[in-house]
C-alpha cells in the first residue's frame, strides 16, 4: 500500500503486537526526499535515522529512516552503493536530522549532501576516515586522543561575548558542552556539543545474541531502561514472529508506568530545587525513594532493569506485593496532590516557571519533538493514547489513556504535564494491578536468520525507537537504539533564546534530556 498517494513507495505493515509500523524501500535518494517532503507536509516527524554497512553480505551501505505519521511509523530503507555512499540531506525538511546525519557519518562513513559536515560523535577518540561500525573496521588504530577543534557558530556585534560551560559541571550531572553567546545576561544563541558519553553500544551489540542485546539496550540510558527494554523486545518479537501473552504485556505496561512516575517525581523535585525551593526536592525525593523501593520489592531492582525481556517479562510480582503497590499508589497520589497545591500557590516559584523557556507547537513540529516536551506545547502526541487514525498497541488500547497536554510551552507547562501524567499513570497502575490477565510470563524467542524488526515505545521522556536486524546465525547484525533526546536537544537551543543565562538550568531541567541516550 502507498502511505502517500503521490509517493509511489510500497509499504507493508509489520506483524506483531507492537506499535503500528509500515516497512518500505526507497528506490533512490530522490524518492527518499519526496517521501520526507510528503511526511513533513502531512505534519509528520522524523523519528530515527541510522546507517549500516552490508558489504559483507555482498551489498552496499544502507540508510534506515523512521518517520512518525498520524497512524503510526513508516520505516523507510535506502540502499546505497558501496563505492559512492551518499544520500540526500534531510535537515532542510527536518532540522533534527542534522545531528543524526553527522553521527551516521562518524560511525558508518556514509555521507549526506548537506553543508554541515562537522563531526558529531567523533571527538578525536578515533581518527577521521576510520569508521567503527564498518565490518572491516578492526581494532581502533593507534591514535593520539587529543582535544579536537570544533567550529562553533560565532556571534559578533557590540557587547556580544561567549560563555563556555562544561563538559565538566559544578554539579554531578552528565557531561555536555554548552556555548552561550550573550549580551549581558540575555542569551542570543546557544550551541550544544554533545557526544562525551559515546561508548560504542551499537558496535558492542554487533554479533551479540538476543539476550545480551537486551541487557545492553537496557543500559543505553538508565532512567529509561524499561522503555528501551520494551522497544528492543518489541523489535525482536516482530522480527522473530513472537507474540507475548496479554499478562506479559500488562506487566510491561505496569513496569513502564512505574518508570514514568519515578522519573516525574524526581524531575518535579529537581525543578523546585533549581529555583532554590529545596523543600520541594526533599519532599519529592522522599516519595521517589519510597517508589523505587516498591519497584525493587515488585521486580527485584530499583529501576527494574532487565525486567522486560524478549518474549515477555522476567519477574512476576506476587499478589501481596501488588496489593501493597495499590495502597502506595493511593498514598503517593494524595501527597503529590498536596505538593502540587503548594507548587501552584507559590508565587516565587510560579514567577520562575511561567513564560520561561517557551516554545510553541510549530517549533515542536518543526523539530519532530515527542513526549513531554511536545505535549507541553499542546501537540497531542502520545503513543499510549488514541488519536485520529491511530490505535495504541496492547495493553494501552484497552486502558484508554488520557494524554496530558498544556498549550503554554514553558517550564510551567512541562511541570503541569508531569503532574497530570503522574496522576494518570497512578490510575493506570491501579487498573493494571487489579485486572492482570492470565497467561504465561515469558514465551520462547527463537532467532530467525536475517529477520528485522522495529520497536516503538512511549517512554517517560518521549518516543524510544529500537531497530534490530539479525544475521545468518540469528545474532544481532545491527542494532540502533534511538532516544527522543536527539530531537529535543536542538529544540532546547531555541527554548533558551528569549531568556537569560541564569534561567538556563531551570529550562534544561524542565526538558531533562538524556546525554547518554543520544551519545550512545
Amino acid at each position, binding site marked *: 500500500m502507498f502511505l502517500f498517494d503521490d509517493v509511489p513507495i510500497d509499504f507493508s505493515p509489520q506483524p506483531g503486537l507492537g506499535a503500528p509500523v509500515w516497512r518500505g524501500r526507497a528506490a533512490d535518494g530522490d524518492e527518499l526526499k519526496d517521501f520526507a517532503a510528503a511526511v513533513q507536509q502531512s505534519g509528520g516527524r522524523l523519528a530515527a535515522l541510522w546507517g549500516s554497512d552490508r558489504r559483507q553480505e555482498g551489498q552496499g551501505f544502507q540508510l534506515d529512516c523512521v518517520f512518525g505519521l498520524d497512524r503510526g511509523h513508516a520505516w523507510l530503507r535506502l540502499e546505497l552503493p558501496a563505492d559512492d555512499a551518499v544520500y540526500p540531506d534531510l535537515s532542510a525538511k527536518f532540522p533534527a536530522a542534522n545531528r543524526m546525519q553527522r553521527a551516521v557519518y562518524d560511525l558508518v562513513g556514509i555521507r549526506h549532501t548537506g553543508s554541515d559536515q562537522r563531526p558529531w560523535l567523533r571527538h578525536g577518540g578515533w581518527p577521521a576516515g576510520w569508521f567503527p561500525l564498518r565490518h572491516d573496521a578492526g581494532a581502533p588504530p593507534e591514535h593520539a586522543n587529543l582535544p579536537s577543534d570544533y567550529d562553533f557558530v560565532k556571534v559578533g556585534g557590540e557587547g556580544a561575548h*561567549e*560563555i*563556555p*560551560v562544561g563538559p565538566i*559541571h*559544578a*554539579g*554531578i550531572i552528565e557531561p555536555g558542552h554548552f556555548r552561550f553567546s550573550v549580551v549581558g*545576561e540575555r542569551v542570543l544563541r546557544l550551541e550544544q556539543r554533545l557526544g562525551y558519553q559515546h561508548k560504542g553500544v551499537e558496535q558492542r551489540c554487533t554479533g551479540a545474541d538476543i539476550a545480551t542485546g537486551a541487557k545492553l539496550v537496557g543500559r543505553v540510558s538508565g532512567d529509561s531502561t524499561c522503555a528501551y527494554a520494551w522497544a528492543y523486545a518489541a523489535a525482536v518479537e516482530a522480527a522473530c514472529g513472537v507474540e507475548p501473552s496479554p499478562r506479559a504485556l500488562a506487566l510491561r505496561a505496569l513496569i513502564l508506568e512505574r518508570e514514568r512516575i519515578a522519573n516525574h517525581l524526581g524531575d518535579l523535585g529537581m525543578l*523546585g530545587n*533549581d*529555583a*532554590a*525551593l*529545596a*523543600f520541594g*526536592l*526533599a*519532599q519529592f525525593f*522522599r516519595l521517589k525513594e519510597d517508589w523505587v523501593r516498591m519497584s525493587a520489592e515488585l521486580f527485584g531492582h530499583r529501576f527494574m532493569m532487565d525486567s522486560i525481556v524478549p518474549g515477555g517479562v522476567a519477574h512476576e510480582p506476587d499478589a501481596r506485593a501488588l496489593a501493597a503497590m495499590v495502597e502506595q499508589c493511593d498514598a503517593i497520589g494524595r501527597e503529590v496532590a498536596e505538593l502540587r497545591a503548594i507548587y501552584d500557590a*507559590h508565587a*516565587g*516559584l510560579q*514567577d*520562575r516557571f511561567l513564560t520561561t523557556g517557551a516554545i510553541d507547537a510549530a517549533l515542536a513540529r518543526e523539530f519532530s519533538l515527542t513526549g513531554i516536551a511536545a505535549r507541553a506545547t499542546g501537540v497531542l502526541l502520545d503513543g499510549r493514547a488514541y488519536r485520529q487514525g491511530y490505535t495504541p498497541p496492547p495493553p494501552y488500547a484497552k486502558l484508554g489513556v488520557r494524554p496530558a497536554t498544556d498549550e503554554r510551552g514553558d517550564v510551567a507547562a512541562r511541570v503541569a504535564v508531569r503532574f497530570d501524567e503522574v496522576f494518570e499513570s497512578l490510575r493506570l497502575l491501579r487498573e493494571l494491578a487489579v485486572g492482570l490477565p492470565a497467561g504465561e510470563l515469558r514465551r520462547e524467542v527463537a532467532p530467525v536468520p536475517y529477520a528485522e524488526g522495529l520497536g516503538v515505545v512511549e517512554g517517560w521522556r518521549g518516543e524510544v525507537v529500537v531497530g534490530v536486524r539479525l544475521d545468518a546465525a540469528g545474532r544481532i547484525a545491527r542494532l540502533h537504539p534511538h532516544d527522543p533526546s536527539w530531537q529535543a536537544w536542538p529544540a532546547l537551543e531555541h527554548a533558551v533564546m528569549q531568556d*537569560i*543565562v*541564569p*534561567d*538556563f*538550568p531551570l529550562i534544561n531541567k524542565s526538558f531533562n534530556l538524556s546525554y547518554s541516550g543520544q551519545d550512545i
Partner: protein
Amino acid sequence: MSVAGILGQLFALVLALLLAPLLTGWVNQCRAWLQNRSAPPLWQPYYTLHKLFNKDVVLADGASSLFRVAPFVVFGAMALACAIVPSLSTDLPFAPAADALALVGVFGLARLFISLAAMDVGTAFGSLGGRREMLVGFLAEPALLMVIFTVAMIANSTSVAAIVATLAHRDFVIYPSLAFAGVAFTMVSLAENARVPVDNPATHLELTMIHEAMILEYSGRHLALIEWAASLKLYAYSCLGLAFFFPWGIAERDNLLALAAAVPLLILKLAIGGFLLALIETVNAKMRIFRAPEFLGTAFMLAVLGLLVRLLLETRV
C-alpha cells in the same frame, strides 16, 4: 582608652571569629530541619575550614597577585567590620572609628576586591559572578545607607556605639521609623549575604550563581579565608541588625558584669535570628536575577519611608 576596653575589644573580635562559622552551621542546620532533611553537624563549617586550610592551593595560570591578595583583604575587612560593630559592649577603643558609614565602606572594599579577583583569572564564570555582584552591590549600598541615616537621626550620630547607647540605655521609646528601616535592613542583608531569594548559597548550578561563581577558582587556604569571611559577614550583618533594632543587653561602659551577661544574650539573639533566616530561605524560591533590582528598590523605598517618618512625625519642631 582603658585596659579593660582593649581587652573587651579583643574578646569581642575573638568571639566573632569563633562564633561566625557556628552561626553559619546553625543556619544550615535549621534549614535542613525545616526541609525534612537530616542536618549536617553544627560544627561542619569548622571541619570545612580545617580541611581547606590543610589543602594545597591551586592557582589558575593567569592569576595575578591581586588574586592571591584578595582573600586576605576580604577576610581582614570582615574581621574589622566585626570589631567595629558593638556586639557585646559600647566601650570599644575602636568606637570613635566605628562610624556606620565607614562600615559600609569596609563592606564595599571587600566587594571590590573579590569582584576584581573573580575577573582577574579571566574565566567566564568569574566575570559573570563579579558583574552580578556589582549589580546587587550598587543597589544594596544606597538602601543600607538610607537605613543607617534613619537610625543615625534618632541618635544624632553615625557612630554605631552612640546609636546603641541612645536606643538601649535611655528611656524606652517606640520609633515607628525603625519598623520601616528594619524591614529594609533585612532585605539588604539577604542580598548582601548571598541568600535566597537573591542568591542560593547551596546551588551547584554554575550559571545561576552570584557569590559562588566569583570564588569558583579559589582553593585551599584562600578558599578557607573566603568561606570564613562569608561567615564573618553574616555575623557582622546580624550584629549590626541587633545593634540597630534589638540593642538591649549590650553592655555599657565600665560594666564588667553586664559584659558577662551580654555573651549568652548575644548567642540567644543570634540563634533566633539564624532560625528566622533559615525560615525565610525555606519558604522562598530564588527570584529571577532581573527581579533583584525590584527587590532592592523596594528595600530602598522602605528605608526612605523610614527616614520620612522620622523627619515628619518623630521630630519635634
